[in-house]
Structure formats: C-alpha cells, structure tokens
C-alpha cells in the first residue's frame, strides 16, 4: 500500500535474527492475524474517516501508535476522550489542542479487545506492495478491431492470384500467348481508352462518388463525435463513476434542477479529496501513480488547501480550474438537462455514452439536430404520470382515443421549442 515504511526488514542484518523473529512470528501468527483482520474492519468502519495510518488527517496519524502511547492510555482515550481530558491528562489535552480543539467522538461500546485489535492493526506492517508486473502491460482494446475482415480480404486476394496463375498455366498448356499481369492491365487500359461510352460512365461514376463523399464530409463539419480534449487535470470518470461507483449527480448536481448539468465546483471535489490525497488505484493514460497524486494536488492548488496541516490557507485567492468543454452546443440551440433527467428520467449514458468506462471523456453522440429529433420522434411520453400530463392525457384519450404519443406529437419537434 504505502511507500513509506517504518518497519523495514532491511535493517535486520543477520539471518539469525531473521530466523528468531520468524519463529516467533509463526508461533503467534494465528492469533495475531485474527486480531489484525478484526482491527482492520473496526478501523475502516469507525476511524478511517478521520485517521490515516501514515499521515495527519482530521486526527493524528495512527500508524505505530502503540510505540508512542500505552495501551491503557489508548483504551481510555478511545472509550471517552472527554473524560480522559477532564482528569487533566497532559498528553490528552495536548493532542486535543493540536488538532484544533475539535473533540473526537467517544466509543464507549468498544471492548478492550476491540481497541487492542485496532492497535494491532495500526502496528501491523503493511503487506508488501504487489509487484504489479502483469498489470502494467496495458491491455489492447480489441473490441473494435477489424482484423477478421482484413484476414478475409487477404485470403480473397491470395485466392484471386491463385486463380489467375491457374489460368496462365492453362493458357500456356493450350499454347496461347500469355501476357504478364502488367500486360493484361495494359490491354484493358487500351480497350478502355478506345471506348467512349466507358469513359463517359467513368466520369459520371467519379462525379457521383465525389458528390456523395463530399456531401458526407461537409455534413460532418462541426460534428465533433469522438472529440476528446486533454483536460487541465487528468481526471478519470472511470475511476470515479466506474470503479468507485459515485453517482453522476453527486458531482453534476444541477442536472436535475437546471439547464446545465453543472461542472462540479472544487469544493465538491474536496468533500472526498480532503482525505484522499494519494492515487492508489491502477495507473492509466500513461500516468504513473505519483503523477496522478500530483493531479489530485491540483485541486488543492485551486482551493488553497494545505494538505500538510489539514486546513485551508487563510486569505487565499481561489484559482479556478479551467476545464475544456467537451460538449459544445451552439448558442442558438436551447437544451435543458432537467427536462431530460428529471422529467423524462433518462440515464446520463443515453447521450453521454459509457462515461463510467472513460478515463478521459469524449463526445459520444453527434449532438446534431437530426440526432435530437430522431429521439424525439421515437420516444413516447409517459402519460400515466399524474401532475402535468394528466389533463392532456385525459383530453387525448377522450377526443381521439389516443393512449400513446411521442414527444414529437406533443410538439417536441417545433422549431421554437429549442431555438429561441
């Protein structure tokens, strides 16, 4: 887990000491391992919000706390630190002051064994980090690969060549003049030049083809599907929304209220990143873990967070993060997220694609008018909802016997609904 290691094996110099310790280790491994596992569970559940093992957080670092404090003291502190402080215990009051006089909650329900288990966990040496040699090799994305197609084409080509040489040999056997492949092509070219109609056909074909492809190319101007700008921070949606399963609207909270989904302000990032200052997951996008830790630190630069002292700098002038917009609708098109998210109940992925699988977000949908309209044509409005649609539904049912209507039929294709 951590690169900082306080209990390094390297200091053990002799094999003897190693064997001695190994002997004790094996002897006690059963009970100790149980304690550590229990302690880890308790630590993660109760302590990890404010404590880390290796560095200061809301509370002090707890790695090897047993070396600094006695077990009795720790038990008393955990059970009711307020009471301990009232006894005038100098250490207790000092630590209370050091961490901004904000009291730690009391845990009177913990048994001594529980607390000992936690201490055991904090004192246990962390498991040696796995040499993730196998994982470093970036897996090739084979999903979109078209190699079977090429294979097929290749085979076809070989087949054709074989047929051609077969004909050549046949001709040779019959005693006809055989041309080389180039000679054949030459003959065809001469025949082509001699035939005016063929020439005309070719020109027509060429014109039609260039019109077809030219139109397609021109129609794609301004369509930025796949646009994937490099962002100021190497923020990964896969890590956040995919691996850690954070809900889209936790960060993009205005999507349900407003026309914009809202790029989260840095204070939303800080809700989690006050505590998560290091990248510990799988590296991605050619960044090392250290690089990615530095990327997290960019939020601290923006917000003026002093990670060492665990507080915001005073009189700090915020430095906003300048993201590059991925989805750019032109000004004359009005789009409202809340209409689609709250009213229609669409999933974000419907338009934005599998964001939870994207390290760096790219534009998934074309965002063209045809694409919008198509969805409006196909999607039915849920008329069974009470509230706004109730009256319209009743009237439609009464007047036309209509039970199903698409958005387009309710006026969702009128120009003025999106262009004003």
């Amino acid at each position: 887990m951590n690169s900082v290691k306080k209990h390094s094996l390297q200091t053990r110099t002799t094999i003897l000491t190693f064997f001695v310790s190994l002997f004790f280790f094996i002897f006690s491994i059963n009970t100790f391992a149980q304690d550590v596992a229990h302690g880890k569970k308790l630590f993660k559940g109760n302590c990890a919000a404010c404590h880390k093992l290796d560095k200061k957080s809301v509370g002090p670092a707890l790695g090897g706390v047993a070396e600094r404090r006695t077990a009795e003291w720790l038990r008393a502190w955990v059970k009711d630190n307020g009471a301990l402080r009232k006894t005038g215990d100098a250490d207790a009051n000092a630590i209370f002051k050091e961490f901004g006089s904000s009291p730690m909650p009391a845990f009177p329900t913990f048994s001594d064994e529980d607390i000992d288990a936690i201490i055991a966990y904090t004192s246990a040496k962390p498991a040696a980090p796995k040499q993730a040699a196998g994982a470093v090799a970036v897996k090739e994305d084979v999903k979109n690969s078209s190699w079977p197609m090429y294979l097929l084409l290749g085979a076809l080509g070989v087949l054709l060549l074989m047929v051609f040489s077969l004909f050549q040999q046949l001709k040779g056997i019959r005693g006809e003049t055989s041309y080389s492949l180039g000679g054949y092509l030459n003959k065809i070219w001469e025949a082509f030049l001699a035939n005016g109609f063929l020439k005309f056909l070719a020109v027509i074909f060429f014109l039609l083809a260039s019109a077809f492809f030219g139109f397609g190319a021109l129609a794609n101007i301004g369509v930025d599907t796949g646009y994937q700008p490099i962002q100021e921070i190497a923020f990964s949606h896969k890590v956040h929304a995919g691996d850690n399963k954070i809900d889209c609207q936790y960060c993009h909270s205005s999507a349900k209220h407003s026309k914009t989904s809202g790029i989260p302000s840095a204070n939303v990032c800080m809700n989690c990143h006050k505590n998560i200052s290091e990248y510990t997951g799988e590296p991605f996008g050619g960044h090392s873990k250290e690089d990615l830790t530095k990327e997290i630190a960019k939020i601290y630069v923006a917000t003026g967070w002093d990670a060492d002292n665990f507080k915001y700098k005073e009189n700090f002038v915020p430095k906003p993060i300048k993201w590059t917009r991925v989805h750019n609708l032109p000004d004359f098109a009005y789009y409202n997220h809340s209409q689609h998210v709250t009213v229609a109940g669409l999933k974000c992925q419907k338009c934005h694609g599998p964001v939870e699988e994207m390290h760096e977000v790219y534009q998934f949908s074309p965002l063209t008018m045809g694409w919008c309209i198509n969805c409006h044509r196909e999607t039915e409005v849920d008329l069974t909802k009470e509230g706004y649609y109730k009256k319209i539904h009743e009237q439609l049912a009464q007047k036309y016997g209509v039970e199903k209507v698409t958005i387009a039929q309710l006026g969702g294709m009128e120009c003025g609904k999106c262009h004003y």
Partner: protein
Amino acid sequence: MSNKKYWQSVEELKGNAVLEGLKQKEFVEKLPTDVFLGDKETLEASSTTRRDFLKYVGFSTAVASLASCEGPIRKAIPYVVKPDVNTVGIADWYASTIANGFDYANVLVKTREGRPIQIMPNKEANGTTNARIQASVLSLYDEHLRLKEPTKEGKKITWSSADSEIIAKLKTLQAANKPVVLLTGTIISPSAKKIISQLITAYPNIQHISYDAVSESATADAMKAVYGKRGLPNYDFSKAKVIASIGADFLGDWQGGYAKSYTASRIPEEGKMSYHVQLESNMSLTGANADRRIGLKPSEQVSALISLYNEITGASIATKPTVAEKEIQALASALKKAGSKAVVVTGLNDVNAQRIALEINKALNSEVIDIKKLSYVRQGNDAQVAQLQADLKSGAISGLITYNVNPLYTLANATDFAEGIKKLDLSVALSVENDETANAMQYALPVSHFLESWGDAMPTEGNFGLTQPTIKPLFNTRQAEDTFLKWSGDTTNYYDFLKSFWNDEILEGTSWNKVLQDGFYTKASGSPMTVDLSETNSEESAVSISEAASALLNNKKGNAYELQLYTSTAIGDGKLANNPWLQELPDPITRVTWDNYLAVSMADAEKLGFSNPVQDNGAINGNYANVTVNGVTLKNVPVIVQPGQANGSVGLALGYGRKQGLKEAMQVGVNAYPVYFGGNNVQYNVSIEKVAGWHHFACPQVQSTVAGRTEIIREVSLHDLHHEDPQESWNAKFKPSYDHKEVAAEKVDLWDGFNREIGHHFNLSIDLSTCTGCGACVIACHAENNVPVVGKKEVRVGRDMHWLRIDRYYSSKVETREEAKKMGLSGGDYFDVLENPAENPTVVFQPMMCQHCNHAPCETVCPVAATSHGRQGQNQMAYNRCVGTRYCANNCPYRVRRFNWFNYAQNKEFDFNMNDDYGRMVLNPDVVVRSRGVMEKCSMCIQMTQATILKAKKEGRAVKTDEFQTACSSACTTGAMVFGDINNKEDKVTKLKEDKRAYHVLESVATQPNVVYQVKVNNTHKA
C-alpha cells in the same frame, strides 16, 4: 428634392479653382502606383511572380477555410466554492427597493449566476416600475460612467487615507466653526436620515440641504403654509370620480407618479370610471390619457386655477378669462357635484398655485387627497438651495459634501456654483457616476449602485421598503451610509446599523428575515422619520389667497412665448442619460428617440416658419431654434411641431445634453437646465428665433393619425359601452361576403384549421383603456430578449429593433369619408386632412408586437420554413434557419418583424451595452443574441412559457391559473397587458378574449391573431 445648394466651406461657395480640382479627385495625393509598376527593372527583379501570388492567395484561402472547420476550444470554468443559494442556470429573484431620489419602487430583481439581469415590479408590495426603473439594471454595468475608485484631485487614493484626510479636515473646520453643507438628493431612507443626524451631531457645523434636480419644492412649502408640515400630499386616484389636473403630469413624473391608482379608477366594467379633464400646455402622457384635454398655456392655467377656485368656493378673486372659460365652468360644476370624490391637482411649481389647489381640495372636502399620511418622494428645498448658491458665491461656507446630486449639470447658473466650489476648503462628492460635480470636487468617492447596496425607504408615511444587494460591488465602491457612519466616528457597518434600526424602530417584533424576503413592510402607526422636515420661511402663510392669486397673475408680463419645462418618460431628470435602452425608447407622444426638442404648436409653427418635412427614406427633419430666457440662450434646439401644444407655449424636456463621462453616442439633445431658473418649470418671457439648418430626427413612427381605420384602433364612449350593442355599432365583427351572404369571418378560410384545444394555447390581451403608454413593457422586453440598441442613425432609417413598440395615434379633424363630404373635401385634400392631426387631437396608445397569427402571412412566404407555428399558438422564429430574404417582413400586415442589418453585439460601430464586457453581463443567458442577416421578432417570451411548463413538470403538477407570464405582462402594472392560456378556463385572459370589448387588429385580413385588444373607453359622458 429641394433645389437648395449645399456647401461645405465659403471657398466652395465662391467657386475656388483649387477646390474644383480637388472635387475631381478621389484622393488628394496621387497614388504611387507608377513608381512601382512603371519601373520595369524592379518589377522583373521581384521574386514573386503573378502566378506565385495567385498560388499564395489560393493556398491561404484554402487553409483558412479548412482551419475554420475545426470548432474553437471552449473553456468551462466552474466555481471554486459554489455559494449554496445559487444553482447554475436557475434564476433567483430578490425583493428590493429602488429609491434614487427621482424614482421609487418596490421591485423584484432577477439574478442569474449572481448577476442582476432584470427588474420587475414587486406586485405584492403594490410596486410599479416605469421605463427608467426597468432600465436601471443596465446602469449598474455602466463601466464607462461609473466612478470606480476614490480619487483626490483626479488621482487615485485609498479609502482609508481619503477617510482620514476628510475627517481631519472636517475636524479643523468644526474647530474653526466654519459652516459645511451636505447637499443630497431626496433621501427617503429613515436609517440614512438617522445616520446624517449622527453626522451632524458629530460635526454641528454641517447643515443638510435636500435638492431635487426637478423641483416639487413649492408643493411642500404650500403644505407647510396650510397644514404646518413640510411634505407632499398623497393621492389615491382610485377613489376619484372627477379629476381636474392643471398641468400636472401625474402619469409621468409629477410628485413620483400615480399611474397605478389612476388606472384603478378607469375600469369601465366595474361601473366606476373617473372623468378626467387635463388643462395643460405640453401634450403630456397624462393629457393623452385624459377624457377631455384642453390646451392652455401656463399663464392661462393660472387663470383657470383661480376661476376654479372662484367657482368652487364662491369667492370672486380677479382673474383673466381664458379661451376655454365655458369648459372651466362646466368642469367646476362637475367637481362640485362629485364633491368629496373630486380632486384638483396642479403641476405649477409655484407656492401660490399649490396653495390655491390645496384650498380647492379643502373646499371640496376631497377624499382623494391625503394630507395626513404624507409622501416624501420629493424633499428638495429651493429656498435653501438658493441660499447655498449665494453663500458659495460670497464664500460664506467652507465645505461642501454632495451625495447623489449633480448640481453642476442641473443648476441654472452652474458656472457660479463651479466658481464657488474652487474657493472651498473641503469639497467632497459622493457619487455613483463620474459626473460633472464629481469631477469638480477635491474628493470623488464612489458610491455603490442600489443593486449593490443595503438600504431602506419610506416613500409615504407608514409604508416601508428594504433594499438588499444582489451582487458584490463591481468596483471599489462604498455605500454613502457607511461613509457617513465612519466620518461620524461610528464603527458599526451599515448593514448592522440598518438591522438594529429596523428592529428597534420599525419592525414591532416582526421578523427581519421575513420582511427582507418580502421587501416591504406596512406600519400602522408611528413614524420613525425622526429627522425634522426642514423649516421654511413662515411669512408665506400670512399671504391671503387673493394676494397669492394676484402674485401668480403678475408673474406673466408681456405677450412673449411661455416655456413649459418637463421631464421625458425615458430620460427623466437625466440621471440615466448614459443608458442606451432609454435613449432609444421612443417618446410616447412624439415617438422621437435620442433627442429632446422644442415642442411648438401648429399655429405657432406656421407663424415662426417651423416644419417637420418627411424625407424620402421615411425620416423626419426639423428646424433649429434659439430659445432665449432671461438672457440665457439655448442654441440650436431642434423643433417638433406638436399637435395639442397650447398656442403661445413651447415645451422642452430636461435631462438631455449631458456631456461629462457619457459615451459619445449618448451625448444627445440640448441641456435645458440652464433656463430652469429657480426650479420653476414655467418660464415666461421667452423669445424664439429660427436659425438655419435642419436637424435629423430619429423617429420610428411617421404616420401620426389612424386615418379612420377602425380595424386598427377602436374607441367607444362610456355611454355607448353600456347602452349600445357592440356588434351593431362600436365593435362590429368583420363579415366577409361568401356565396353572396354575409358570414362570420371564421367561415371563410384558405387554410385548414388546426385543433388547439389540447395543451396550452397562449393569448395576450391588451386593454387600450388602461394602457397609459409608459413604455415599461418596451424596456422589459429589451432586457428579457436581448433586443439590441441600434443607435440614432439606424433608427432614423427605420431599422429600430424594438420587438414591442407603442404606436401612438392622433385623431385627425376628419376621420370618415362622410365627414369629408360634409366639409366638401375630395381626393387629395381628403387624404391630406386624414394624415394631418387636428390642433388638439385625442390620443390612443397601442402596444404593437408580433400578433402570433394562427394563420400567419409571414409563415407561408418563408422559402426556408424558418418561421413556423407552434401548437401553443406562438409564431416561432428559428434564427439559425433564417437566410434573411425578408419576405416575411414584407408580408406582415402589422410591421413587427425586425431585421438584423448588422451584428449589433461586439461591434464597435454600435458602441452600446453589447460592445463592452460589463454591458454584456446584463444579457439573458436563456435567449440567443442574434447575428447579422437574420429576422427576429416578438417570441411571446417562449423561453418564459417553456420555463413555466418545465417547472410544473418537474414539480409534478398542472400549471397554475395565471402562472404563465411574458416580460411585458409582468412589467405592466396598470393591468393593461394580461397573458395566459385560453385553454385554461380560469385564466383571466380566457374571459378577456370573449369580452364584448375584445377585437383583433386588421380582422379582415383573417390572420386570427393570438393577441387580442380591448376597445378603448372614453368617459365623455360627463359625471
């Protein structure tokens, strides 16, 4: 075309030979082409051949066009720490109050992402907004004119050193007992008054003087004389049955304006419609709305006032008969008959005239006038201001602190004042704007805009408003209240002061937060206005009515012209002169934009040789006049011939001609303040002299009269409304002939109908009776829909962009063919008369915007289907689809489509708010800024109707009754504009659409509009 010879210089006139030669050349110097092209060697030595050049051109064009295929990289910058209260993309509304010394209103401020972008009336608080209040949000972003940091002698200074220097100076002046004057505009804030009294306690040598640029001082003085308390009487016109106004423009700015309570008395359906007679010289907004308007020059108004007094009280004070003696007697008897339901008001800023008016109301025992719960919206004291001017000149005072006033612009003899300032030991200007006064003083301290400030107001006794900031100060500004607190040695900040002041003196235990949210508070009893309303000379009260009357009559000597100064609907006292929205707002009467002008009656114009010829591009020109009053001459005042202007009088608007700090385009008009002697809006002994040259007016409406077309304007008398069948007479539906039979218009149709019964179907109803023509809706439309300002030149050639305009129609002498026949007119003469307004015409205002025709002529002619119809009744305009053929505008019978001839945003040729970074902050992010070459028009605020629908959908409910609004209908406080869904039976507009007064403009074209008008009712049936 005229045969006039135009010349640019005297030399040209003389036929100078050099000039003749110059005329033949496009460039004065010969272009050096031969030097290069004539030299064969250089040409050949050049490495760039013609073919290479063409290659470069081709290549660079191709590269440029390829490069433009790639979209620009756009940044998205979120908050670092997002405030909890706002959600990006959702508007927040805050209740606040504007009280800038001239305008007062309870308002709601719309903010987007922390930027105020619109101001609407707080209807819960009975708030009313006029065009200026609507537009004041734009002045917040006036980077050009606003003071941005404290300065001393024009150089930057920090607030702390400015404070310590000024405090030190004040202390020395106090020690030496040298008088210092604090000159402010009207302050209706009780807390600010308290702070000023604290300041005076700290420095007893300070005297506080209130000064209104446009004075109502005489009324306050008259109140003091008659009732012993200085303040303005408050009027409730909704109680009135008969209203006689002698030159009081109470629908305009007279004593703060009374449009809302007036229109409340003008709803014919409720059976009570007041009878309103206006005796005035200029054609004012109030006169235009009156049932009977009599044109009287100011001296005749005086006589009329005395005659009314005589008739009503039975006195017999000597007076001069006027041209309308009979009508005045009839009016007097109507007033007497209505008794306590009658009221007489006068706009003459003369203490004697005001006293007589008060005495008449006393004799009538009028309920309309309230002399107990006074109005404080104008507190200026002309006598004290005159004394200050004299003291400054003589050097009797040593210090001057000005706040929210600009005397160097608004005083008649500003140069004396400027000289006096130079002699002062201490001169400080606290000002929002970097105006004339701020420039002349030693210290100029920037004051926050009201949208950045805390504050309170008590416009009338017992009615309170709270002001709250809706944006952090844009510049290094500070509220004047904070400054005064600091100077008086009080360390609390103004917000804390205000809160504790309200809790102690006003709130009576009500929650501060609740009142702050509401924006207003009404207190049953007890006034916190602890500061006394300054004393006046008590001698005036000794004067008897007859002496007052003869003093009034004696003002006028000789037979010269009389000048009536007034404030225009758009610019008011001139505080907002740098506001392009207001400069481009057409005057409701003349429809002139970007100008003030001398209004001259038709008879006088003939005498003096003035005219307004129409040019072949549809614009009008005007003569220039030099206007001399008391030896001061206003040069080159453009002249408008104004139907209804009383003969022998001329009118001129104050507030124009400001120069200091204004953008060049906004430095328009003539400053009339130099002849505003003694704050008197009537100046006698005026001489007018015609001077050479033509002024180019920018006037979007040339057609003056409705020319008998009842398809556009319909009027009915109150009597006929109740006694005649509308279908037979005053609101007959158009019946086309079909199969040789007259049938209802809906029966004959080229198009297939479309069933609109399901869903929403929007309609807008406009009541011509209660529309006063104030123009608030026009500015609201500007703000809501990002309507561009195009400038004077463009308006002149008919390229104004107003989506909503208010047409003004006069009635000419002859309205029908029958009348013409009786007069023996035919052919051209008949049409000439139709086009010419009568000398004293009646006026109708008609707001005109896209009528959203269900069978729209514009839609069928668009070759690219850029304009189409929505099922909700809105005629939609897809800007991105429009290719600018302008066929639609050509085919629109209502002339409401507007073409973007240029890019008006970010174009230095149109240096208005959309050309600077601050000014663009006012743009509504929900509406696109249109680009060059596309057509635009009223959208019936589709962004607002869509937002209302979305809100209902999100909340899972049906849309509430009357929940749908447009910008114009929310801005309209007289209730003339009502918007709603006619598929909802409960909506007000559903009933209005079926009302017997309802009609469609140009019904015979069968466009089936979704805008419905209500026939104007005139109370010509005398009470």
